[in-house]
Structures are given as structure tokens and as C-alpha cells.
């Protein structure tokens, strides 16, 4: 009998701050968990630093108010505030009631609260710069790696972390070396209607690949179809979040400690220009220093650049690993557009995994459209509390007709388009000159303005969503509004990889160009945005980076 490592596990390894460990991994999310597993399985001593607490399965709740409105497990605008502005001529201000950039602040990071849509990038994603560039006002460049180099690691994600799906069902899928280890989850009414409408239009919807168990897999149960994936932790452990998958496996090596409630605010450096460890606050806001031979930052696309910029030294006054000036720049969110639609009979979208059907017919950018941009669609549900906040145009916001609208909740679904965002140099994360967080650490300032092509593409996606829902037989369609982005949860591109140290932050092995024993791996590494579901790519990059970093360590090249 295999022992599930999530409960009553053998006593976990701990290190003292007097010990110099081989690696510190900052962040325990999609990439940090995998990095910890790969490095510790390679025989290295590892300490994972996580800002937030460690939650057990029974700590997660189906509480939409707490998780979607009160920062229950995400960075809070009260304790972790940020500011936002459109361009550098403006003074950045705090946004009322929320942060522009949102991520989960618990062990498992955003892999704990994601929707679990696991889309691979396609071959074109890695070479769009040479195929479609240049684009005025953007920095569309090729990745320093290809799909073929990443494919084995995509497969590793699917089998090691756990992804359900139906290989070969989409004519637009990139090639793959193995099928999914689990069959797809059962379709729900939104998936059936989405498929019906799309097929009528000659499109090719197919079962959604999801990082959710559809059968018992790796000692974790199948999904119980509770309906609350995005924004929530999965208390049954069916969602393939790092906290249930790779982190227990890292700890099982006896070489890895996950240190929760530990907020890293600066990377230590010596006179030789090498990282020496990390400075952090513990749960009681007491400062410590953990020494290490190397540091791997997997803190997400917002916290990674923040940490580098807050780690400036006299010899690196613009921030660590920032000789290119690219740290924090090229921030991408994944711009999207869609429609909500009402049908004759109840769908009950609050039941079942959030997504069951997707399509990639419009994945590639087509110059004939007159703008850059590509995307995918899914049929998607939303929780009732979130849904009830807004009404379609023409529906009263109060009174008997508003009440009638509330009564129609179970008849609605979303057709959501997820698309590209162009890398723009001026879209960036830097440090606010005045604002500090609850620990006294200088806070994030976001500067962002959509590239015009992103807005055109988002509007194009809305039109396609309306067509699909109309073909599906919707009685009422509420097209989404496309407005200027004011933040996001996909935090990409802010420490981009590249071969040229003058234009990128890390090389193709995730080593920073400037600091030999400092590595970065998360959404910040991505060179282009993909089409809206970045987590599988982030995890594939982490498996690949962990592989190479382990080799460097064995060869004494760190």
C-alpha cells in the first residue's frame, strides 16, 4: 500500500538558519513545487520559502464570498497593497478594494486556486517573432527554446502532476509523445451546448484537458464535481495542485523543507557577485537569513521581479540580474473576450468542473484579420455570488425584473475567449516610491496599457463567442465588454528568457545572465503570452529547468 504523503506524513525535514543548504526555492506554487521536487530528488538539500500559510484539505471551504471577494487565500490589498497607472506620466494609485495583480498566497501558490485548464503551447508560440514580427509598439520575439525541446516536459507534467484529457481529439493540437494518463471529465450542459454551436459553424470543439483527476490517480481521488475550481482550493485533492502533488513528493525525499509563512524580501549577495541566501520574515515578522549555495526564484510573475528590484545592491543599483533593464518589463496578462448566454432549459453550471469543452480553431494569429492575435475558447461556469453582481445590458439592477434575472441563474453559461497579449516594454512592474506593505517592504507599482492589437483581438473574440452561442440556440446573448486591462491573474513575461543578455534576464536554462547561482522560473520566464492558460507551460519549464539546474549542480557549475 502506498502512503498518501499529504496526511500524517513522517516527520518533515527541517534545516536551521545556521546551515547552508544547496538550494533555496522562493515560492511553492506551480513552478516552485516542481523545482523543489526535482532538486531534492537529485540529492540536493532544499528549503522552499512560501509567503503564506500551509493549508490542510479540511481548511479549504466552499465560501465564494471569502475566496472571491475577501482575499481569503490571495494577496490582500490591505497587507500586500499595489498601485496602478496607465503610463509613466501618471502617479500610480491604489485601486479600491482589490490589487491589480492577484496570486494565491499559500503553500501551493496559484496552483492551489487555478481553474486547472492545462493547454500546451503550440509550436507557433515559440517562433512568432520570426514568423509574424516585428509589430509596432511591441516586442514580439522568438523564445530561445522550441516546442520540441519542451515537449518531453509537457508530457512529464501530464503524467507526474496528473492531467485528464483526450489526446488526438483536436485537429489543431501540437504533436505529443504520449496520451493523457486519465480520460476526460464528464461533459456538462455548457460543454454540450458549446460543442453543438461550434460544430454547426464548422469548428472543432473537444474535451478540455484539465489538471483534475477524472479517476483515482497517484492516490488522489477523482473530482467530486463540486463546481468550484477557479479561485478555490480543492479539499478533496482531486485538483493537481502542487500542495497535493509534487510538494509531498519533495518532502518524501527527506531533503526538502517547506517553510511556510516565510516572506523573502531580499536576496543576499557577496562581493564576488554571487547569491548567498535570502533574507525573510517569519510568521511573527522576525527577520532571518537563510544561507544557500544557490537561489531559485519561483515566486510568480509579480513577486519575482519585485524581489529582484528590492534586492538592488551598490553594484547592481537597478536591481539584481537587471543589467538589461528588462526585469519587470513586458508584463502580459492574456487579453480575452466572450459572451454570456441564456438557454431555454436549466444548465446548472454551479455543478461540475468549471470547463469541459474547448476549441483551438483560432489559435494561430491570422494576418488577414488585420491585427496580431490568437486565442482559444472554453465553455465556462461561474459561481452564483460572482454572477449575481452584474446584469446584462437592459436588465434592471433592482426590483421585480432584477429578481426575475436572479431566478434565471441556472439557465446561463459563459463562452469565454482567451487570447494573446503582446509584450510591450513600457508595461511593467516596478517598485512604488512611497507605498510599503505590512512588513515595510516597498510595494509593487504596475504600469500597463493594452497594445491596440490586443484590444482589437479581444473584440474579435467577443464576436466569435456571440456566433457560437447563437448557433447553439441561445435565447439571450450578453456580449462581454472589452475594456482597458487593469490587472490580471496570469502574470507573464517580467523576467523573460533569451540568448542575448542585453535584452533578457535569464538564459534558456533559467540562469540569470548576471548572477551565476541565481535562477528564475515561473510566468515571468515566458517570452510570449500564449493563449490564456499558462500553467502547464510554467510547470513544463520548471521540470526542464530543474533537470538542467540539477545537472549544473552535479557538475560543480553553480
Amino acid at each position: 500500500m502506498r502512503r498518501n504523503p499529504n496526511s500524517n506524513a513522517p516527520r518533515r525535514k527541517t534545516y536551521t538558519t545556521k546551515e547552508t543548504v544547496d538550494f533555496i526555492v522562493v515560492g511553492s506554487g506551480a513552478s516552485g513545487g516542481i523545482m523543489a521536487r526535482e532538486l531534492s530528488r537529485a540529492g540536493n538539500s532544499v528549503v522552499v520559502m512560501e509567503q503564506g500559510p500551509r493549508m490542510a484539505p479540511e481548511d479549504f471551504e466552499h465560501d465564494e464570498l471569502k475566496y472571491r471577494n475577501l482575499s481569503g487565500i490571495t494577496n490582500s490589498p490591505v497587507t500586500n497593497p499595489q498601485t496602478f497607472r496607465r503610463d509613466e506620466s501618471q502617479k500610480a494609485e491604489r485601486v479600491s478594494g482589490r490589487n491589480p495583480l492577484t496570486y494565491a498566497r499559500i503553500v501551493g501558490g496559484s496552483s492551489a486556486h487555478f481553474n486547472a485548464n492545462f493547454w500546451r503551447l503550440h509550436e507557433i508560440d515559440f517562433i512568432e517573432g520570426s514568423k509574424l514580427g516585428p509589430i509596432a509598439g511591441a516586442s514580439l520575439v522568438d523564445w530561445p527554446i522550441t516546442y520540441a525541446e519542451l515537449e518531453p516536459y509537457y508530457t512529464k507534467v501530464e503524467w507526474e502532476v496528473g492531467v485528464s484529457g483526450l489526446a488526438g481529439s483536436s485537429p489543431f493540437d501540437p504533436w505529443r509523445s504520449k496520451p493523457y494518463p486519465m480520460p476526460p471529465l464528464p461533459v456538462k450542459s455548457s460543454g454540450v451546448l458549446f460543442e453543438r454551436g461550434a460544430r454547426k459553424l464548422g469548428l472543432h470543439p473537444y474535451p478540455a484537458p484539465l489538471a483534475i483527476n477524472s479517476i483515482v490517480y497517484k492516490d488522489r481521488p477523482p473530482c467530486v464535481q463540486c463546481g468550484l475550481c477557479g479561485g478555490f482550493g480543492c479539499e478533496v485533492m482531486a485538483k493537481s495542485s502542487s500542495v497535493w502533488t509534487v510538494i509531498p513528493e519533495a518532502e518524501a525525499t527527506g531533503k526538502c523543507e517547506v517553510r511556510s509563512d516565510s516572506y523573502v524580501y531580499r536576496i543576499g549577495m557577496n562581493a564576488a557577485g554571487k547569491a548567498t541566501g535570502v533574507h525573510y520574515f517569519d510568521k511573527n515578522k522576525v527577520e532571518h537569513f537563510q544561507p544557500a549555495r544557490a537561489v531559485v526564484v519561483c515566486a510568480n510573475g509579480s513577486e519575482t521581479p519585485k524581489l529582484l528590484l528590492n534586492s538592488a545592491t551598490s553594484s547592481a543599483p537597478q536591481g539584481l540580474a537587471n543589467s538589461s533593464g528588462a526585469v519587470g518589463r513586458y508584463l502580459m496578462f492574456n487579453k480575452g473576450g466572450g459572451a454570456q448566454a441564456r438557454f431555454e432549459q436549466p444548465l446548472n453550471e454551479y455543478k461540475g468542473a468549471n470547463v469541459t469543452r474547448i476549441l483551438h480553431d483560432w489559435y494561430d494569429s491570422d494576418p488577414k484579420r488585420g491585427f496580431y492575435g490568437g486565442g482559444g475558447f472554453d465553455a465556462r461556469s461561474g459561481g452564483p455570488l460572482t454572477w449575481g453582481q452584474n446584469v446584462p445590458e437592459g436588465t434592471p439592477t433592482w426590483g421585480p425584473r432584477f429578481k426575475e434575472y436572479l431566478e434565471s441563474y441556472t439557465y446561463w453559461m459563459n463562452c469565454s475567449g482567451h487570447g494573446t497579449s503582446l509584450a510591450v516594454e513600457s508595461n511593467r512592474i516596478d517598485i512604488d516610491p512611497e507605498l510599503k506593505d505590512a512588513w515595510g517592504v516597498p510595494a509593487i507599482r504596475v504600469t500597463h496599457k493594452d497594445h491596440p492589437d490586443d484590444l482589437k483581438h479581444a473584440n474579435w473574440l467577443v464576436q466569435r463567442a456571440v456566433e457560437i452561442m447563437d448557433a447553439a440556440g441561445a435565447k439571450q446573448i450578453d456580449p462581454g465588454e472589452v475594456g482597458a486591462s487593469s490587472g490580471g491573474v496570469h502574470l507573464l513575461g517580467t523576467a523573460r528568457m533569451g540568448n542575448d543578455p542585453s535584452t533578457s534576464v535569464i538564459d534558456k536554462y533559467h540562469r540569470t545572465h548576471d548572477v551565476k547561482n541565481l535562477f528564475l522560473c515561473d510566468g515571468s520566464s515566458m517570452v510570449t503570452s500564449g493563449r490564456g492558460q499558462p500553467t502547464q507551460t510554467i510547470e513544463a519549464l520548471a521540470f526542464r529547468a530543474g533537470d538542467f539546474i540539477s545537472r549544473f549542480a552535479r557538475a560543480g557549475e553553480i
Partner: protein
Amino acid sequence: MDKPIPSRRQFMAAIGELASAGWIAMNWPQIAFAAEKAGHDMKGMDMGGSSHTALTTLTAAEAAEVEAIANLIVPGGAKPGAKDARVIYFIDNALGSFFVGQLPAFRAGLTEFTNSFCTKFCTSNKSFSAASEAMQTAWLHEEEKTPFFAAVRRLTVLGLIALPKYGGNSEYKGWNLLGVEDNHSWAPPFGFYDIDYPGFEPYPGTKPYTA
């Protein structure tokens, strides 16, 4: 005889000690159901929750005015409205805990709302809540673009749909209005349209395959 339903924590602890995968498949729906039932009851203490059934933030007079507005936003009738779902207790709880920062502006807005109403309509210090429904409705149309109305509306919707532990959605009446059943796990078919789904039909030229 029905099987006894262990506590949520007992269920969760058991997950780590499972003897077989089959055990999970056989037992999980029951586990999850019991777990969530307990979870609704026990969580949220740090956010002002747990059976909030008395006013602790608003005065009785303030609450009467706010409840009157809320019950125009989601009126009662054949199906429950804001008053039936005891939304006022959610609003009171929220403004005294997780939305306490909004309380000063809310109070100022309420004062302006009632004073303006009185200035225009009161002949004998009659309050908004004591006015006729027609008069209330007419006044709310005049106020519906104000930040105060937006705040009451948002709180009303949240109070209608958030878990009962926060004070509103009494006896899940808000969920009943929306057609949402209180359960933790579901099995297909989920809705009308997936009942007769014939299965995924592959496209010409594709060869779906599984492990």
C-alpha cells in the same frame, strides 16, 4: 439503517490513510457531503461569521431604512426576497467586520438618503421605511445612480447569496431563489442538455487515443 456520518475532520484525516483507491471511489461522495455540511457551520469565524442574528453595528433605525431599500432591490413575493433571506444581518455583520472600512461612507450615505427623502416627501417626520411602497420605489429611482445605492445593492446581493454563516441567505433562501441546491458533490447529468449527450464524435482525420 443509515451509515453514521463522521465529522468533516475525521473524513479528511482518513484520506491520508486510505487502504485502497477503491475505498476512495466508494466513500468519497459521502465524505465530501458531510465535510462540506460541517464546513458551512464551522468556518468564517475570523470574518465576522457564525450565526449573525442580531444587530451589532447598525442601529435599529438605520437597519430599518437599509432593509427597506434592500427589499426593494430584491422584493419578496411568491419567492423569497431580501427581507425573507435576512439580508440585513449580513449587511450589519459586513459593515462591522470585513467591510468596516466602508462603514463611515455608508452611514454618511444613509443619512443623506433619508434626509433628502424627508426634505422632499415628509409631512410628519415619516421615514423612508414607513412610506408607501410606491413612494419608496419612486424615490429609489431618483437615487439609483448614487454611490450609496450601489453600496446597498452590492451588499444586498452578497447577503442574498453568501453562505448563511455571514448572516444573510437565511435557510439558503437566497440560493433557493437562484435555483442552487446546497450540496458538496454532484454527478452527471448536471443539467438538461447533458442528459442525452451521445458521446464525443471524432473529427475526420483525427484519431483520439487514451492511455
